[in-house]
């Protein structure tokens, strides 16, 4: 059982802040750390034969300090009628324990000071302190005595300190009075002490009424499981008018016998407290890891859902794109087709066509006075508008869907989940994002067209035989059909060379157009599917940067599954070691 590893893991774990159960969870986690730090890690350093630690605890003004002084047989802690007078715990310990108590593992987080005067215990200050009083009395060597501050006053820190001391102790001398013995805080303290396996010595101070003692005994025994009742002592100390350290009475022997001189039982007491602490820690660890796992699963689900929504929107956009026509692609396959030009023939035709085109363009421009763009431009613009509207729509849909995800979170996280929704972007931001996307998409398109063209050019450069073969095939088709049709129309044989040539050329041109377009169409489909995929990926980029990451950034981290697995493992190990 690696306590240090467990401590590191616990330090890394943390709950989502602000949930309904946040305070409770944080307290539980802090308790795990304290149980581990204060008791288990300390005991691991302390060794087997050390004396048990006995803590004197109770509410304000019940006489804890008095009882402590009686136990120490020395006036160490000043008692006062003022409530919460003792501010700091005092430890009364034999010098042989110096090494263990000087260790950093002894009450980590506390400033350790040597107790010189009793007044030191009631001086208030920030932080946490513990005062140690060394002694060399062999008759008091059997136990380490600790005086705890009260557990029920308005002083919050006192309760923290009292809890730490309870964790540290092996046995508790619990001091109560007729007024306080059934206070809930006191009873809760006793219950917790018994749960961690501490030996309980319950003192009913300032009373000798048998009725009250019996009631107190009943309260205590109800708390303790049957098998441990033999280890619990309950007895009364009558009202002592002058409760100095020398006050005498038969109760003093009882007190001393039960609390200050455990004799051979000391080791058993320590063993039981240690085992109890282990079981308690194991239980708390299981609770903590269960809750953390719950949170983690919610967060994981949200992440997965957000990703799913993004993917859904991307897919919708891809489907939309495939219903569009992309005139940009013409540019690619026109250039590719260009590669299969038959030299001379197509050059001549191309030259003629170019000249004719220029003339006809000039004429058309003059004739129609075309102020509007040509059909392709209009269609491209219309397509762009549709594209923009769709991008905006899908973008907003994705955003609102992701923003609604935390609504589905139930349980304690429901309270903080709305805070994970990123603030909605302003309209200008949305429009700007969409415009930027379209601009980037256009740039990408240009690059893509260039790349595709270059890739094809490279390909044909790398495979000149293929290009030549295709060209020959195409030429054979065109020219062959031209010649055949010239014959068939009778041009070459009867009608004279001019008619033959005209009909042959017409056929050749017609077949060229068919062949080119067929190749172009087939290629267009492949290109389009590539192109839409690339563009949809770009859209995903938009969603990821503008929708997904603002959401993910606001989601809390959650705890690491590795740590949780180790914590669970540790809980099992602690249970094994803590079994009685």
């Amino acid at each position: 059982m690696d306590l240090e590893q467990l401590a590191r893991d616990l330090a890394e774990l943390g709950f989502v802040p602000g949930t309904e159960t946040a305070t409770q969870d944080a307290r539980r986690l802090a308790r795990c750390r304290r149980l581990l730090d204060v008791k288990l890690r300390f005991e691991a350093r302390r060794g087997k034969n050390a004396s048990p630690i006995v803590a004197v605890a109770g509410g304000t003004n019940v006489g804890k300090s008095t009882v402590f002084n009686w136990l120490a047989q020395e006036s160490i802690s000043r008692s006062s009628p003022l409530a919460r007078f003792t501010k700091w715990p005092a430890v009364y310990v034999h010098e042989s324990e110096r090494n263990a108590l000087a260790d950093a593992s002894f009450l980590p987080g506390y400033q350790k000071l040597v107790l010189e005067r009793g007044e030191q215990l009631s001086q208030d200050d920030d932080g946490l302190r513990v005062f140690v009083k060394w002694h060399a009395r062999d008759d008091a060597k059997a136990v380490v005595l600790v005086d705890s501050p009260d557990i029920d006053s308005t002083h919050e820190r006192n309760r923290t300190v009292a809890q730490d001391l309870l964790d540290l102790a092996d046995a508790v001398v619990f001091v109560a009075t007729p007024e306080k013995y059934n206070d809930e805080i006191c009873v809760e303290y006793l219950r917790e002490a018994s749960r961690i396996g501490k030996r309980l010595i319950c003192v009913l101070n300032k009373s000798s009424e048998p009725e009250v003692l019996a009631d107190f005994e009943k309260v205590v025994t109800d708390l303790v499981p049957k098998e441990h009742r033999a280890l619990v002592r309950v007895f009364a100390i009558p009202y002592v008018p002058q409760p100095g350290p020398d006050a005498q009475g038969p109760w003093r022997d009882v007190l001393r016998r039960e609390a200050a001189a455990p004799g051979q039982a000391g080791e058993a007491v320590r063993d039981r407290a240690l085992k109890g602490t282990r079981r308690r820690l194991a239980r708390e660890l299981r609770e903590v890891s269960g809750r953390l796992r719950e949170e983690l699963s919610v967060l994981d689900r949200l992440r997965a859902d957000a990703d799913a929504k993004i993917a859904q929107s991307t897919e919708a956009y891809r489907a939309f794109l495939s219903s569009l026509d992309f005139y940009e692609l013409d540019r690619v396959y026109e250039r590719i087709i260009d590669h299969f030009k038959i030299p001379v023939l197509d050059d001549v035709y191309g030259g003629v066509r170019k000249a004719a085109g220029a003339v006809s363009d000039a004429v058309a421009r003059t004739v129609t006075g075309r102020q509007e763009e040509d059909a392709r431009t209009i269609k491209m613009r219309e397509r762009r508008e549709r594209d923009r509207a769709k991008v905006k729509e899908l973008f907003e849909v994705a955003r609102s869907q992701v923003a609604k995800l935390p609504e589905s979170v139930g349980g304690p996280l429901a309270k903080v989940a709305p805070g994970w929704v990123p603030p909605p972007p302003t309209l200008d931001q949305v429009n700007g994002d969409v415009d930027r996307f379209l601009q980037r998409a256009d740039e990408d398109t240009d690059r893509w067209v260039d790349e595709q063209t270059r890739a094809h050019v490279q390909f044909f450069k790398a495979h000149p035989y293929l290009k030549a073969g295709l060209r020959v095939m195409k030429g054979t088709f065109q020219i062959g059909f031209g010649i055949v049709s010239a014959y068939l129309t009778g041009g070459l044989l009867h009608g004279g060379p001019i008619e033959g040539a005209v009909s042959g050329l017409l056929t050749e041109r017609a077949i060229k157009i068919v062949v080119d377009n067929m190749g172009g169409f087939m290629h267009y489909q492949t290109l389009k599917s590539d192109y839409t995929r690339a563009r949809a990926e770009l859209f995903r980029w938009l969603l990821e940067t503008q929708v997904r990451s603002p959401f993910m950034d606001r989601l809390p981290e959650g705890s690491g599954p590795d740590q949780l697995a180790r914590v669970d493992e540790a809980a099992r190990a602690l249970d094994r070691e803590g079994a009685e």
Partner: protein
Amino acid sequence: MNVPVAKPPLGGADGAIPIGAVVSVIDRVEKFLAGARCFPKLEEDRASLELLLAQVKQKQASLETPLRVLLLGGTGVGKSSLLNALAGADIARVAATRPTTRELTAYFHKDTGSASLGALEANAKLIAHERDALKDKLLVDAPDFDSTARENRELLERALESTDLALVVVTPEKYVAHELFAMLEKWRDSVAFVFVMNKADRAQELPTIVADLKRELERRRFKDPRVLALSAAEARAGRTAGDWQSLVELLERELDRVRIREIKASKLQDRVRALVDRLEAAVPGDVPARLEAWRLGWRAALSDLTADLGHSFFGALRSDFELRNVLGYLFGTSMGGAFGAFMTAVYGVRAILQPGFTRARRLTARELDELIGDRLRAVDPASVERRVQLVLERFEDEGRRAGFHVVDTVGAGGTAGLERAGLPASVSALVAAVRTESARRFYDVFEETLGAGKIGASSGRLAWNALPLAVVGFAIYAFAAKIVHELSSAHAFDAMLVVGQAPHLLQATLVSWVIACTIQWPLAERTIQKRIAQSFDLLEGVVARAVQECLGAAVLARPEKALEEVAARFQELDRLRKDARRALSSETAPSRERGVREAPPQDLGREPAGTKRPSRRVVTEG
């Protein structure tokens, strides 16, 4: 015997404080709370505000009831003993084991009765007495709040709700308990507190302890707490010591009818003031500015949507080449005169050759409507619906951004609510409306632009047709001049020969007409394209307007209403706040400076001014 406690004059001489204005404030607060659901902090605090309101109403209802004094304290501090001592009889059970008391014990005058306990009467042991000094008070012994008997706590909480004055019993051993202070802080504003340090006889250094308690109380904003140190057990045994006499005096004399009502009224006012303050704190003060931001954001979203939808609808029309051809045909054939005949001939030929023109030739208004309907059907209604929905969400987003609780603005607290479920119907209605409207307007546009062409006939068309006419005229003139010339030179036969050339003249005229028209043709086409562009521009405006009108009427007017509703709520609160201030300050004028006054009536729980203390001491010792 006693120096009467000086009281500042309050309300009427008979102690009847006018509380009508306060009551109306309470009613309005209730109405406001029920209606306003648009302020997030208010929603967060709603539960506690409603609780506060309920308490206020209870206080209001209990104005005329006797003063209810509750004995409050941890287990074993001697609450029951104190009641027994006050009653001078063992009316509440006292025992050494803890906790003893598990029920309420009510000690009241038989004339006053215990009815003011309300539902708690069933949980209480009722003891009637005939001591007139305690006539208007109802003393209640409550169970503890810190023992393991948790049900005691609930009973105590319920008892505290109907308590006016709490005697907090503490002991030297149990006076800074965590749970006690948690409870005191919770009830600090609604209940007056007087502290009783019981078992004072068993304490060492009593003054130090009392001072410590006072310090702790002051640290928690209890101003000048009044602490009476005494011993109930001693008092019961007849040995009055400590401040016992002060307690008796407090209960028997200091708290007379007028004082009681004052305490109650001022506590009620305190509560109402606290309630109004809480309301005020829950509603941000800059609501108008936030609302304006919301309105602006929302309007921007709306116009963005209108523009986008206009684009979608119009884009469906603009890219339609059939429509273009239709327009071209209409404009082309509408040119009258000599050139018009040429254009009609040209477009007639195109109409035969090109299918779009064929249809255009026979187009009627109804068909045009259908044509546009067809085009608009290409606009995906589901997509329009999503956009409209997104704009509504945007409305909510903007509201949230401006710091409002929107779900309820749009829902219950708002107007009739934006019925999301009704949207699809509205959207198809929207598409239909846009279609009808734009078809109608489209035809108008045709008529208008056509009319412009026709109107041009009077002056412009004459010039327009001048060239072909001039060519024809010149040909006729040349021919006629030739005949005249031949006739004048008396070559009548020659003149006949010239007439015989008439068919050639006709041919030449036609050819020159065609040539003239061909020269004019490009210019005419340019005009036609211009008119097409012009009519598309007009149409764009028409569609945008139609979209806006339809959207506004069909769905989107509601958020505007919701905005107005929020503004109205805020104004209501503003008025309420002012009225409340007036009502509360007119009734207890110095209430704002509570800390400064010397012996305010509601400050029963505070130490009386220094001068009175010695006189009491004298009485006690006497």
